[in-house]
């Protein structure tokens, strides 16, 4: 048994444990932390696969940005830590049942389908150089340029939506509106009120 395999086992075991923790922790902050762990562990496993760029991205983007966002939200929303409800226990067998069936189905399928189960997963792919990042960059900006642009659009959409959804005017804020100030006319300033006749 080589080191790679040992590393894989350790990290994958930890990954499964943290994943389980993510979905079972009663405190969402804990869940988020476990998720961060999972990402780290995954990044290591991806390194094993030779996807250096992606594993770095996973940590930079995910842990650095997305998960921080998550935690931010958790803090912002001031959520109570819920107890396990009775319904949870009631649905647990169903959940486990589905989980097992699904797993069995797919794992058996994988085992039975791959003629070459023992094919080594660790495999570096060379397109223009040894460097994974370089290769990826090359492919991205040549073969997948249109996709890249669309991904940009998706990000734009994400920004736009997030802002539109969460932005709200604070009615207490006092701010000037120059357009209105310029547009103002005489009759807006002066209001003539008819007095009551005696």
């Amino acid at each position, binding site marked *: 048994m080589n080191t790679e395999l040992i590393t894989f086992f350790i990290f994958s075991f930890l990954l499964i444990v943290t994943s389980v923790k993510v979905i079972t922790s009663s405190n969402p902050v804990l869940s988020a932390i476990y998720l961060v762990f999972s990402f780290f562990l995954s990044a290591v496993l991806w390194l094993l696969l030779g996807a250096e760029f992606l594993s770095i991205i996973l940590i930079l983007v995910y842990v650095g940005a997305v998960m921080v966002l998550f935690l931010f939200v958790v803090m912002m929303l001031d959520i109570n830590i819920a107890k396990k409800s009775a319904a949870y226990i009631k649905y647990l067998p169903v959940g486990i049942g589905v989980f097992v069936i699904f797993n069995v*189905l797919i794992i058996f*399928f994988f085992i039975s389908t791959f003629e070459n189960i023992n094919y080594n997963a660790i495999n570096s792919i060379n397109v223009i150089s040894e460097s994974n990042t370089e290769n990826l960059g090359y492919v991205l900006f040549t073969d997948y340029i249109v996709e890249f642009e669309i991904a940009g659009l998706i990000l734009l959409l994400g920004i736009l939506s997030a802002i539109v959804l969460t932005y709200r005017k604070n009615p207490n804020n006092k701010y000037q509106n120059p357009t209105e100030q310029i547009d103002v006319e005489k009759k807006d300033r002066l209001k003539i009120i008819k007095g009551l006749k005696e």
Partner: protein
Amino acid sequence: MIALTLILLLSPLIGTLLLLLCQNSSKDLTILISNISILIAFLLSLFILYLFYSSNPGPISANFLTFADTKLFSLHFGIYIDSLALIMSSVVTSVSLLVHYYSISYMKDDTSFNRFFIYTNFFTFSMLLIVFANNFLQLFIGWELVGLSSYLLIGFWIKKESAIKANYKAFLVNRVGDIGLLLGLCLILLSYNTTDYNQIFQIKNSINIDSVSIFGFTFNALSAICLLLFIGAMAKSAQVPLQFWLPDSMEGPTPISALIHAATMVTAGIYMVARLSPLYELTDGVLIFILYVGSITAFFLGLVALVQNDIKRIIAYSTISQLGYMTAALGASLYSLAMFHLITHAFFKALLFLCAGSIIIKCHHEQDIRKIGGLRKYMPITYLAFMYASLSLIGFPITSGFYSKESIIDAIGYFGHTIPYLMLLLSIFTTTLYTSKIFFKVFFGESTLPKEEQNENPSNENDRQMLLPLFILTAPSVFLGLFIYDPLMIGILFQNSLAANELMMSFYNGYVINSFKFFLHSFTTINFLILLIGLIFSYLYYYKKAFSINVPHFIRTTLTKEYGFESLSSYLIPKVQNIFTKYLWRKIDISTIDNGLINNTSSFINNLSSKMKKLQTGFIYHYSLIIISALILLLILMRITH
């Protein structure tokens, strides 16, 4: 002659239409139109009759209106002129004319004066349609139209509940017979591809269909046709068991009872069978059936008349009984005798009814003979007319009724139909009894008129318009028989219109010899003895009240209830009909089909929908579970199938 007949036929119809048009005009115009149109018809029938006998052209058939003319069948309206039709039309128009005349006075106070004459004119037209029909379809149409007029006239007083019920009943019972007639008509069309008399009389037995199976009994086609047609006749001519509508039909105005329910319409059945006698002669078994039906009717319905107290109902039962005689005569193949009795009966029965009408008017619409009495003084003319008519009815020698009735009884006896003969004999007795019952009760005894009317001059007993028809009708009631008996019996009168002339001849030559001899001979027969006994008995019983008879209650009830037909028709059938139809409607139509099948299906789907709606819980975890389960389901399905 054809044109004249056409005018004759159409003149009452034109009268009807004119009357319809000037509905709001004066009574005089109504009277004028209605009577003139019938008068024209009457005069024309006499004239054509004269022409016919003088030129003797044989039967004439002509079509004048196409009902349908296709490759499959051709049906027309037409006229068929022969002696039978002409004599019948003379009888119809003469009685109709008199009744019309009589009604002017009888109906003068009625608000629907005009409507009455519309109906009667229309009736006359319909009756003539039957008489002159040259095919079965026209016969059937006329048949139904007289039924319609009868319906309308019985219910003439639209506010009178009992009249409304009676006409409903009359129409429905007639419809039972019409089923037979219609089926017969359809079978004729199917088997001959035509309904024309002439053509059918020619081909007779050579038809498309060999035999017809009616409820398991197989008849040859012609017998089936004749039997079915006779069922129609049974209803129209009030033969057992379809007789019970007739007494109820007396709810209509009395002139109508005279015209329709005594003289003309009810005899349409007799006329039809006589008309078709060539066909009936070829059947097997049907005639015997007819004979028995006739004699049973004659005897048993005569009995019922004994226990009735309504003057018109008694006469109505008497009519049924007399119609029984005619039917029996038909059944014995004595067609001309049946026709003869039809004619004489038309006159004397019309007379009886008109007299009854006078009496009823005089007594302010009182019809119960127990409450009428001593009218002889106040209504001398009516009294006399009634007496002659009664004598004719009971068949007192030399009267018209005597010739027709005695001949039927004797002939049936002569040809050896023993049981019918006995029944007819016995009914002479009953006829005598109930006739005398009316006669004695109404005209003798204590007067029941109100005091102030008792002092009136007896000579103006009623309008002259009402008395004149009585006078006129008395003549044929008494003397007609004597004059036409001989020509009738030797076959001059009806020439070749009726079948089985040779039978009549054998009877005439072997038994009657001539009319006068027959008259003399009649005093020696058992018939006369029975008649005498009856007269004496009723004289003692009804007039002198010499003794009283305790009729067992059971028999009396049976008779009053008309052997149960009464309760059947006025209680049982409506009751059953109501309950049964309501049951069908509510239980089967509404509960089973509509609610059970249709609405249940829809509410099932609706329930299904609202139950299944609960699957949509609104919880994300359920939704995701459903989606994943569906995915797994698909995967497993694929794993199994591929």
